């Protein structure tokens, strides 16, 4: 299912997700990509194994347990499980972690028009980074923009081409301050992407820049 994915997550991002130090919006990107990409799922398992090895070797002299620790834990167990089981994926375009945020599939996304047929839906995540779904009509271009921080974009439906590469379902494009790009959606199908940024996008033409504070792009 993931044989065709050509653009993957970096070691740095996978390791930060495994270590638990990524913020919510970027974690959503990792969880969504790994849901579609067996290669990155396997790499993530290796990073988790590093955590397991560190835990197993950890010196414990500084952290004596409370004397009644085991009994207290047995009492917690008797009280029953705290969290419900994680929901499984329903059929659709969005991987399960995104379906959790949208409360359904593509038909449940609450789009807002950005202009030129482009639409977006900002997902509710903790501060520090922003996750949004983007809808680019077939053949249309995203407004030309640069970045103050890092932007990661993953294709969920359709495909887009950047100056020198093509990105289809599951592919992740990683852009930083140096890259000014104008992604253009393939002509055959409307393109839906997940985009995560850790700083506001910076548009290079006048109109989108004026609109920027209002659109929260």
């Amino acid at each position: 299912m993931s044989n065709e994915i050509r653009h993957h997550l970096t070691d740095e991002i996978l390791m930060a997700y495994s270590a638990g130090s990524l913020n919510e919006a970027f974690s959503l990107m990792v969880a969504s990509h790994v849901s579609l990409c067996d290669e990155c799922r396997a790499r993530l398992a290796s990073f988790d194994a590093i955590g397991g090895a560190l835990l197993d070797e950890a010196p414990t002299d500084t952290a004596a347990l409370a004397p009644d620790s085991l009994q207290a834990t047995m009492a917690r167990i008797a009280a029953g499980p705290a969290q419900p089981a994680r929901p499984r994926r329903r059929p659709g375009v969005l991987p399960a972690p995104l379906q959790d945020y949208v409360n359904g599939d593509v038909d449940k996304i609450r789009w807002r028009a950005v202009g030129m047929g482009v639409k977006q839906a900002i997902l509710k995540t903790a501060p520090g980074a922003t996750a949004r779904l983007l809808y680019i009509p077939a053949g249309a271009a995203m407004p030309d923009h640069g970045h103050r921080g890092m932007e990661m974009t993953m294709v969920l439906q359709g495909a887009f081409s950047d100056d020198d590469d093509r990105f289809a379902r599951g592919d992740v494009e990683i852009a930083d301050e140096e890259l000014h790009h104008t992604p253009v959606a393939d002509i055959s199908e409307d393109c839906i992407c997940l985009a995560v940024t850790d700083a506001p996008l910076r548009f290079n033409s006048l109109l989108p820049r004026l609109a920027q504070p209002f659109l929260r792009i």
Partner: protein
Amino acid sequence: MTDLPPDRLPWTGHVSRIREARDQDAFAELFQHFAPRVKAFLMKSGADATLAEECTQDVMATIWHKAHLFDPTRASVATWIFTVARNRRIDMLRRQRRPEPEDLPWGPEAEPDQEDALGLQQDCDHLRRAMGDLPQAQRDLIERAYFRDMSHREIATATGLPLGTIKSRIRLALDRLRHAMNTV
């Protein structure tokens, strides 16, 4: 999985006994080994002793309740407990949601294959030895990343090392681990 010699698949038999027989003795042994490690992990991440104790009990109770989801072909018991403790830490320190990949990651569809489980455990043992062989400076940085809840940038501030040095040391460490894993 229960008929394998315990030293070849450490703790897997314990998890099976918890899952199949609600075996409190097996749980007590697992608890004695892992609970202090989980508590040390949470305290290194910045929790005080009281909070760390409470979260440790919570993590170990989760291990009991989720024993049926453990899949020894996908992770060692130590790795599985690490992921549960890490998720509890994210909740404890930041109160943020933790999006997880789809497909319950520890949910075996059928009886796990013993060969696969043994192969995975050998990889884990090998990885642990390779990590023991890392130069101290590289191992320290990996430990900070995993145990102190620090981004590379935060590690740079804490250690006074330039960000580029940290990134290249971590990259070197990963290269060494990869190399070690490829020369079994």
